[in-house]
């Protein structure tokens, strides 16, 4: 179960799809639906129960409406990832390498892309969605519905304003992951290099 992808899916869902069942969710998705491309920095904190301090990694990301996601890890090690219609790919010396479609990963990938294409049914079936706050400062809580998901994690919390700010994943085993999206901006189009990365 890839929680990050799951939460990014939610993000994308909110960005563009019709969550028709509640007025405020609709409002939120309208708010997030505007930008075509979001550039930003991220800090990922992995809190492992047995470690005194979290594993912290940093990098940048690009979320493009019709292309997918680039996740560029910079420290403590450098590694680029890409999710698009083809699957999850990792970049090595020879370019993008598509990772083998493992059952769970591929399912996440499918879900993510389904959401990108505006198919909201999957997420709503899997999660209870609860929204609080206002357009400037909101918080969305996802609680898994299915038994299988409940065995994996307790909750996903997403906070934001104009754009998403943090995503927090609470696993049942006691570990948690916090993703902080910083300096997100929706003003820049895709660079040539980014377009090339998505196209390859």
């Amino acid at each position, binding site marked *: *179960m*890839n*929680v*990050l*992808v799951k939460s990014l899916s939610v993000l994308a869902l909110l960005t563009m799809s019709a969550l028709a069942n509640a007025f405020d969710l609709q409002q939120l998705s309208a708010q997030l639906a505007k930008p075509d491309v979001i550039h930003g920095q991220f800090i*990922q904190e*992995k809190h*492992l*129960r*047995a*470690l*005194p*301090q979290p*594993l912290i*990694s940093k990098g940048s990301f690009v979320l493009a409406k019709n292309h997918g996601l680039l*996740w560029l*890890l910079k420290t*403590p*090690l450098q*590694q680029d*990832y890409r*999710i698009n219609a083809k699957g*999850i790919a*990792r970049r090595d010396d020879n370019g993008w390498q598509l*990772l*083998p*479609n*493992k*059952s*769970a*990963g*591929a*399912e*996440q990938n*499918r*879900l993510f892309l389904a959401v990108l294409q505006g198919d909201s*049914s*999957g997420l709503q*079936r*899997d999660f209870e969605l609860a929204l609080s706050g206002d357009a400037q400062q909101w918080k969305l809580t996802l609680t898994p*519905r*299915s*038994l*299988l*998901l409940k*065995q*994996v994690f307790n909750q996903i919390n997403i906070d934001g304003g104009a754009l998403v700010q943090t995503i927090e994943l609470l696993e049942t*085993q*006691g*570990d948690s992951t916090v993703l902080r999206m910083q300096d997100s901006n929706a003003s820049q189009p895709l660079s040539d290099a980014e377009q090339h990365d998505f196209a390859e």
Partner: protein
Amino acid sequence: MTLPSERRLPWLFLILLLAVVALAGWQWRDGAPLSANLMELVPGTHPDALEQRAEQRMQEPLNREMLVLVGHADRQQAVAMAQTLGEQWQASGLFEKVQWNLQADLPALRTQLLQGRLAMLSADDRQLLIEHPDVFIQQRVQALFDPFNGFTLVPSQDDWLGLTGRIQNSQPQHGSVQLDIGSGALIADADGKSWVLLRARTTGNAFDMNLPLQVAALLGASREQAAKSDVQLLAASGLLYAANGQQQATREMTWVGGGATVGILLLLLLAFRRWRVLLAFVPVLVGMLFGAVACVALFGHMHVMTLVLGSSLIGVAVDYPLHYLSKSWSLTPWRSWPALRLTLSGLTLSLITSAIGYLALAWTPFPALTQIAVFSAAGLLGAYLSAVCLLPALLKNVELRPAQWPLHLAERMIALREKLLERVRTPVLLALLIAFCVGGLVQLQSKNDIRQWVGAPQQLTDEAQAIARITGYQPTSQFFLVRADNQQQLLERQAALSERLEQLVNLDKLQGYLALDQLVSPPNQQEQVRAALNKLPQYWQPLLDLGVPLAALQSELQQLQTVPAEDIDAALAGPLGEPYRTLWLGPTEDGVAAMTSLQGLNNPALLRVQALDLPGVMLVDRLGELNEVFAATQISAAELKLASCALIVLVLMLPFGLGGALRIVALPLLAALCSLASLGWLGQPLTLFSLFGLLLVTAISVDYAILMREQVGGAAVSLLGTLLAAVTTWLSFGLLAVSSTPAVSNFGLSVSLGLAFSFMLAPWAGRHEHTATVAEPAA
């Protein structure tokens, strides 16, 4: 004029009949003792006990499980329908287990992964750990940061070295079916639809008589229900083939049996113009009864195919009463007992020769034919006895005044033949016939395939193919059987085989395979892993740099040193062992054995090569072997045919002398040759079944030659008797040709051809010098 013995005979026979009816009643006390198991019909290729056990193990799921895909463009709707159907099916009581979602037992999975850290590590990961421990650690560090690494079942603090994650990721992918995290359903996407996998395991197997029909009916109802919500169902199961086979057998039995019955009754009425003559059908019914009782008594049950082929007995059994009924054209007035007396020797000869012909079938290695032979021989005996003992009494006061048109027809045919012979003499005709035979025989092609036994409808095979395409599950009937002295050797041998199969997979010659060595490694390799782990402290600095406490790593290492070596049984016990369980055959007489199953094979010949120089490994290819047996049996069938002819010659020598006997037997043989040639001219393949059909026709048509040679009542009357016998026989066998089971239809075609030629050639049987005069004193 009735002899005293003829007064007692009917009563004696009725007592016998009563006994047989009672026996039948007892045999049917628990319902029909019928079987539809195709494998019972095909020859045993005498595999050893282990091979047989392996085969049963591999076939069991085919005969008990049903695989259904529930498809809709909307995934959620597909899942909902799968759930609804799953619940309905579970409640139907037909299934032992219905599964539409995966109830993953995560704690059990965690335990197995932790326990199997040494034993279940894949070959690649093992190699990396042993040869490049630094890279091994580096990859672990990377994985800890990797946001897309996927969810690992075992939390990091229980497995800092990441062994369980590696095991989890190296589990072979089965087809293109994926787990839907939300619902737990197994789903494949194809053709713009989401297909939810629904698996059901029945309480009995495909060869229980009622179960397949019930399952097929349930599936039919579910299809309709699903269609209302626009949901499409695709289903595959041996059960559906069995249900179809049963329905088809019933349908064909009705057509063949009913058609033959109606035709024969009509013929009797038209020819003899008396309602009472319909009693001639009594021997047929008695014959069927005797056949069924003998079959169940000998084999414990009767196969549906025996019934289909056996229903052709109707036409042969009715020949016995026809023998003396047809004497009504020459005997005036006709009386039953004298007519019988006159034809008794011919009847008896006919019974003996036909029985020899049928019983010759019993010596072929085909259980199907053995059953048919027993059914038919017993049936003929029953028909003969009732024709001889009972029927004359029933027809005692009937005076037959048969229609004259059949006689005129026969006379005209004889005249025609005479005219022909005036212009073209027999040797010339024979030469022409032989030319025809040679011309046909060179075009004759032999074809044998087990698939001829199954008349699988297009829809079933289409759906099975669609399921294979969508899910990627393409089970093949071939598999490898691997034997070894102990588990260590077994796993090594399977690994050696896997290495070769992997090459085939890479060449796209094979889609995949499943073997125990993919799940668990042999004990010595587990020790190698243990030793390699002991060297890790030199390389694990990067993990310490992340902040992983040294004590935690050390205690984990210590724990790994005490993890016991895992054997096959232990590995199979956990949830990850589930798909592998059927493969393990366990201890055998001389060691242990397991199987390697295959997916999506497109070249069986390649497989055979794989096993050639691997000790203890053999390919089990039952279909391939069967087809070989078929071909081999063709030769033995021909030999059998000649042997049965020799036997018939011996029997016929008594009344007709050697010359006469040879002549009588030569005619059916020539007829058989002509039929073979006709198959060639018609472009029909020669199959084992056509050969069996001809084997049979030889025996039946010896009868025609005898009739013609005996010439009781003159040539025209004899020809008429022969014609009637041939037409009735053809009515029942010829109808088999319309069967949708290729084997049965082939059988019917060759018998039909054989009968036609036998009838045409019968007048050449010559003329037997009668010592008794034809002029029987009138009653």
